[in-house]
Structure formats: structure tokens, C-alpha cells
């Protein structure tokens, strides 16, 4: 009975994993990049200045206030984002008044050059935000459909995680077992190790991922059980708002924000200011809310301090009234997004995310490895299904990273004044991915693997060079300016390139195939890629 149970779980794990594996790989990889979305955005806007050392928060607040008083006079609420470990530029933002037909106005965010005090015009780019949004809001599909697809895949992922634990007979005795062997045993060990060492992460990320669109997936239950009023009441309980006064429409000059900051410093002691919100700016009701870097996963009322911006007195804040369920809900959100994470914890998030993506990839490879001996022996060659899985594996596991690199290339190489530039950056990414998904259909699997690995190595290692040729925010200048965030970005690209080169080399050593004219193939691949872009661009211009 017990073995029967395990057998059926195994069957379930295999097929569920296979069906949604590729989408999950896409979600995990783009989601993992999301942990660095601010860093990616900064890299993708090379017009922004380098980091400014030796400038105090007070000076930065002054610069921001001068800018906002000039350019956002009629706006009631201002946001000032101070430079931090993730984004080294001073940014300000405000919501524009709603245009007719809009529920609320567009949010406008501007980067300020601290030396001139003026805003910086950056190229049109989707940045890191667009890249990470893809992991739940599949780019070309409508919001509703993508939420349902993502939810379906995450649900199956959760089942795969649970059944995986069930069928893994010896989690603890085999905890450290990794036999670096070729073939089935080696892949099984890799899959097991990657799953087990980050099991808390895999479970947390999948489960909390499902919570994000709770009200979409469980709409029926919440619709049937409560009225609209009860529903909005519940939402308020889960997402309480900060209480602040609105404008009284009586203009009054505010104190300097840097001055108010002195008050806040006394409360906090350590200097960890993250951003400032100003409500009812330059009005008799003006208040400034100072928020520091998060110190708790759920909610710490002491992380924000409210000051009256006219009198400079601290305003005693009523802490947001969270219910226990609301706390748990927010805790899971926070764990999923990792907003609280400092630089090192962020890197750990990034690595565990990659472990998750690698776990899915190894599971997919395991499927083909297991069936390979039987399939190869068949008279008419492998089945269509087997070849399809192999092709999708190659096209996704190596193809998607290349496509993401192409997104960065598009950011640097597309003309700056292009119409719909943001859309075209993404189109370039998906066109490259489509090509790389089709490509393995026309090549023997072993060759396709190696060629795409080599291509991946090439694109990632060339990217910093392209950066040197097209902008002044490249790896050499970032060292000279001691802008380590930008430097790390370029360095990471190089390291990824080296990793791909190493795996291509290893792959070649393992498969005892004769040398093929790989270099020519690689070049052809790149030129067809670029050829396609230019053709599309020309079409666009003609239209």
C-alpha cells in the first residue's frame, strides 16, 4: 500500500513537473532577477550620474526640497527617495492629478543630479521593474489570464514540492549525498540536493506566491461569503493605511525638511533614513513622514516617524492596527519580496532563487535523461514527445538567459529616439527566445546544447564590452568613481559568461563528439538575430 502510494506520488511529481516546468523556470528566473530590480534599472539608465560620495542626508534633502518646490508646486504629496545600497541616486516622485477617465493619476519618478539640482532625462526603458513584473504578469497576456496561468503553475509547483518530499525516501540520510556521476544518478543527486538544501525557500516562495493573488483565485469564496462592505472592511484590516491630514488649501511655507530630520534623528539614533513622504506640502497641514530601512518582516511601528512640517514637532502616530491574520499575510508578502533584505541577505535571496531555477531545470533534464537509453534504441529514432521536451529544455534553460541578455543589449543598442522603445526592448527579448526555442529542432540535441551554451557565454561576456562602447557608465569608469554597485553589475555579467563558458567546455569534454564548426554556427546565430531586429525595425519605420 505504502509503495503504491509512493509510486503514484512519483508519477504525479514527474508529470506535473514536466507540464509546468518551463513556465516555472521562466517565473523563477525573472523573479530572481527581481531581487535586484532597482540595481538593474539603474544600469539600464546610463544617463544617471555616478554615486556621489561625501554628501550628507541633510544636503540631499535640501536639494530635493528645492527641486520639488519648483517643479511640483501644485502637488500635495511628495516622495523623496534617498540614495541607498540598492540605488545610489537621489530620486523624487509624485502622483500627477488624475486625467479624465483615469481612476488616479500617473506616478512620476525623477532622478536628480545632486551637483546641478536638476532632473535627468533617461532613455526610455522598462528597466528591472518590467523584467521582474514578467514573473507574475506574463508580458503579452492580459492581467487576468496571466494571474490565472501563474496561479495554476504555482499550485502545481506547490504540489510538486510536497510530492517531492514524499517520494524522496531518505531526506536526512542522503542530505549530503551528491555523486558527481554522469547520467541518471548524477542528475538525480543534483535535483535532490538543490531541492533539499533550499526546501524552506522553495516552499515559502511558492506558498506566498499563491497568496499574492488570493482575491483572484478565491474570488468565489470571498464573493459568496460576504457583502461588498464586509469585503472592503476586510481589505482595510489586511492593508491598513497610514493616517495623515489632507491639504486645508491654506498655503504656508514649510520648515526645511533637513531641519525636521534633526528631530527624527534624535528618535532613531542610528542614521538609516530610506525615504521621506511629505503630505499636504506647503500647506498649513503639512506633515513629513520619515521612513527608515525595514527592521521587521511584518511591521515595526518605529520604522516611521511623522513630523509636523510647519511647527517641527513630532506627531504621535497611531500604529497601524494589524490583525494577526493580516500580520501573517504581510509577513509572507515580505518574505516573498525580500524588501527587508540588506545587501548580503539580498545576494542570498538571489542565490536561493537561482537554486530554485536550477532545481526546476535539473528536474526537466532528469526527465529526458531517464528516457534517453530507451528512446535512442528505437528504430525510428526518439518519439516526437521526447524530442519536443528536449527541444524546449534547451530553448528554455539556456535560451532564456540568452534572451534576458538580449534585453540588456536592446537597452544599449536600440536608437534612443525610437518610438515604443520600451516595448521593443521586450520584443527583442522574446524574439530571441523564440528563435532559441526553434533552433534545437534543427540540430542534434547534443550539438544544440553545446552551441547555445557557447552562445550564452559569448553574449554575457561581450555585454560589458558593449557597455564600454556605448556609454560612459562602464566597468572601468565605475571603478574609477568607486561606484561599486554598477561595477558589480558588469562583473556579474562577466561571471555568468564565464560560468556558461565553463559548462560549455565541460559539456564538450563529456560528449565525445568531434569538433564541429562551432564558431561559424555561433556567428550565424548572432547575425540572424540581429538581422531580424533590423528587419523589424525597418518595418516599424516604414509603417
Amino acid at each position, binding site marked *: 500500500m505504502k509503495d503504491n502510494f509512493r509510486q503514484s506520488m512519483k508519477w504525479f511529481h514527474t508529470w506535473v513537473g514536466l507540464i509546468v516546468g518551463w513556465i516555472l523556470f521562466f517565473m523563477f528566473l525573472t523573479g530572481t532577477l527581481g531581487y535586484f530590480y532597482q540595481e538593474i534599472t539603474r544600469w539600464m539608465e546610463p544617463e544617471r550620474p555616478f554615486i556621489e560620495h561625501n554628501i550628507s542626508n541633510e544636503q540631499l534633502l535640501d536639494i530635493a526640497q528645492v527641486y520639488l518646490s519648483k517643479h511640483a508646486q501644485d502637488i500635495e504629496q511628495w516622495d523623496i527617495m534617498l540614495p541607498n545600497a540598492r540605488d545610489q541616486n537621489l530620486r523624487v516622485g509624485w502622483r500627477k492629478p488624475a486625467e479624465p477617465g483615469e481612476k488616479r493619476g500617473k506616478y512620476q519618478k525623477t532622478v536628480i543630479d545632486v551637483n546641478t539640482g536638476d532632473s535627468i532625462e533617461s532613455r526610455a526603458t522598462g528597466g528591472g521593474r518590467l523584467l521582474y513584473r514578467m514573473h507574475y504578469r506574463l508580458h503579452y497576456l492580459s492581467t487576468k489570464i496571466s494571474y490565472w496561468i501563474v496561479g495554476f503553475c504555482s499550485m502545481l509547483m506547490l504540489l510538486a514540492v510536497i510530492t517531492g518530499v514524499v517520494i524522496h525516501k531518505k531526506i536526512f*540520510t542522503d*542530505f*549530503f549525498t*551528491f*555523486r*558527481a556521476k554522469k547520467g541518471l544518478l548524477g542528475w538525480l543527486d543534483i535535483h535532490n*540536493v538543490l531541492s533539499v*538544501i*533550499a526546501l*524552506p*525557500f522553495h516552499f515559502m516562495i511558492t506558498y506566498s506566491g499563491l497568496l499574492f493573488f488570493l482575491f483572484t483565485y478565491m474570488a468565489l469564496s470571498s464573493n459568496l461569503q460576504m457583502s461588498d462592505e464586509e469585503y472592503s472592511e476586510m481589505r482595510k484590516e489586511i492593508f491598513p493605511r497610514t493616517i495623515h491630514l489632507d491639504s486645508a488649501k491654506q498655503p504656508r511655507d514649510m520648515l526645511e525638511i533637513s531641519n525636521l530630520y534633526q528631530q527624527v534623528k534624535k528618535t532613531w539614533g542610528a542614521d538609516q533614513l530610506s525615504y521621506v513622504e511629505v503630505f499636504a506640502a506647503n500647506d498649513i497641514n503639512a506633515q513629513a513622514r520619515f521612513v527608515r530601512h525595514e*527592521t*521587521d*518582516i*511584518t511591521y515595526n511601528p518605529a520604522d516611521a516617524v511623522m513630523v509636523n512640517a510647519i511647527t517641527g514637532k513630532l506627531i504621535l502616530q497611531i500604529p497601524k492596527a494589524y490583525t494577526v491574520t493580516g500580520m501573517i499575510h504581510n*509577513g509572507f508578502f515580505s*518574505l516573498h519580496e525580500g524588501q*527587508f533584505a540588506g545587501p*548580503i*541577505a539580498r545576494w*542570498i*535571496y538571489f*542565490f*536561493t532563487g537561482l*537554486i530554485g531555477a536550477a532545481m526546476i531545470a535539473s528536474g526537466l533534464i532528469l526527465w529526458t535523461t531517464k528516457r534517453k537509453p530507451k528512446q535512442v534504441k528505437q528504430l525510428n529514432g526518439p518519439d516526437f514527445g521526447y524530442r519536443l521536451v528536449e527541444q524546449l529544455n534547451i530553448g528554455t534553460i539556456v535560451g532564456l538567459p540568452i534572451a534576458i541578455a538580449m534585453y540588456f543589449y536592446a537597452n544599449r543598442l536600440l536608437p534612443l529616439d525610437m518610438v515604443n522603445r520600451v516595448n521593443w526592448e521586450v520584443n527583442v527579448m522574446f524574439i530571441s527566445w523564440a528563435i532559441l526555442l526553434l533552433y534545437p529542432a534543427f540540430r542534434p540535441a547534443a550539438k544544440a546544447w553545446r552551441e547555445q551554451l557557447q552562445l550564452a557565454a559569448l553574449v554575457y561576456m561581450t555585454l560589458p564590452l558593449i557597455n564600454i562602447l556605448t556609454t560612459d557608465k562602464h566597468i572601468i569608469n565605475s571603478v574609477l568613481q568607486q561606484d561599486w554597485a554598477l561595477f558589480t553589475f558588469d562583473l556579474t555579467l562577466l561571471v555568468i559568461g564565464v560560468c556558461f563558458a565553463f559548462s560549455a567546455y565541460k559539456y564538450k569534454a563529456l560528449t565525445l563528439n568531434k569538433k564541429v564548426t562551432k564558431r561559424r554556427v555561433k556567428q550565424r546565430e548572432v547575425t540572424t538575430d540581429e538581422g531580424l531586429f533590423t528587419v523589424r525595425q525597418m518595418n516599424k519605420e516604414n509603417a
Partner: protein
Amino acid sequence: MFVLTSLSFSAMVLFCLAMDKHRKQVLAQKTPTIMVRFFRPTAWLILLFTTYLSVGQFGWSIGIAVLFGALTIASLLLILLLTYRAKIVPQVAVALSLLVSLSLFSG
């Protein structure tokens, strides 16, 4: 963070040495059975201490999350070492523990 990962690593090494098949991989000579019995409890103690440090540094909520991250990284490192450089595991563990105690006492 370095301290947490190193301590997790030491705990993991002890867990791993408590298992016969891995002990043979890592240690050339035989270890007295009495000593082996102490490996697992010591590992749990180290883990407990790491949790204490992590919670002390980051608070209850973030501390636990960070601890799991540190454990993941430490396990990955250990598993890779076991497969490719099993003999240097004790040296790495000792070196890391020394560095940890240095940073704990100086800071």
C-alpha cells in the same frame, strides 16, 4: 552574515561527520565512537547558538529568515566540497571557526 554562514557550515560539517559514509570520505583515520556520539548534539548546540546570534542581530522575524538563507548557502558549500575536495573539509571548518571566534571576540 559571514559569522552566521560559517557557524551553519560548522554545524553542517558535524552533522555530516556523524554519518558513517561521510566520515569515511572526510577523515582518513578512525574516530573514537565516543567522539562520534558527540557530533550530533554539538551540531544542534551550534545551530541553536547561530539562531540566538541571528535573532539578536536581526530580530525574531528577519533573523529566522536570514538563518535559513545562511544554512542553504553553507549546505551547498559543504556538499560541493564533499564531492570535489572532501579532504579539506576539516581544514575549512577549523579555519572558518577561528575566523568566527576572532570576529565575535573583537566585535
